[in-house]
């Protein structure tokens, strides 16, 4: 998510701009950490089902890689569409 989706900072006086910008940075850091955790949880839940060994086998590792890649691509696409809708742009069916 980029800052412009959260607030229109350009019209603010400088000190407010800095304050809001810092606030947004903190939100983004918190959001990134949360995304990290939820991605791990999701891919673990979807890919790892057996506990006969301590280490991931090749299949599980591949699954986790694909899961993470797919989710990140998905997230980027959602971000694009979200930004469009946020700005009130009409979207194709």
């Amino acid at each position, binding site marked *: *998510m980029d800052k412009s*989706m*959260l*607030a229109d900072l350009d019209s603010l006086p400088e000190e*407010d701009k800095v*304050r*809001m910008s810092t*606030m*947004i940075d903190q*939100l983004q850091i918190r*959001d990134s950490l*949360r*995304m990290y955790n*939820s991605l791990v949880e999701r891919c673990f839940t*979807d*890919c790892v089902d057996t506990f006969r060994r301590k280490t991931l086998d090749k299949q599980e590792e591949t*699954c986790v*890689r*694909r*899961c993470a*890649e*797919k*989710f990140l*691509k*998905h*997230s980027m*696409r*959602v*971000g694009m*569409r*979200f930004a469009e*809708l946020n700005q009130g742009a009409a*979207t194709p*069916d």
Partner: protein
Amino acid sequence: MAANANPPPSSPSPSRIDKEQIIGMAEKEMEYKVELFNKLTHTCFNKCVDKRYKETELNMGENSCIDRCVSKYWQVTNLIGQLLGSGRPPM
């Protein structure tokens, strides 16, 4: 228009307290937007993406599903916003 008519009294400039409230509300709204985005992302992933992860790319069907899911989720958000905002007393 008379050139020397008194302009209407302007409202007092926002006090420091008002400004704090406005910034506080802006922060809440930003947090809301972040949460909305996250829930939207997770919900549409669950609804649209095949969990077998047969490849790293999203296929055409998944892409279309994602676009439509985001759009519908957004509509639901607005709809519920309207229903909540109409100020009807809780049942």
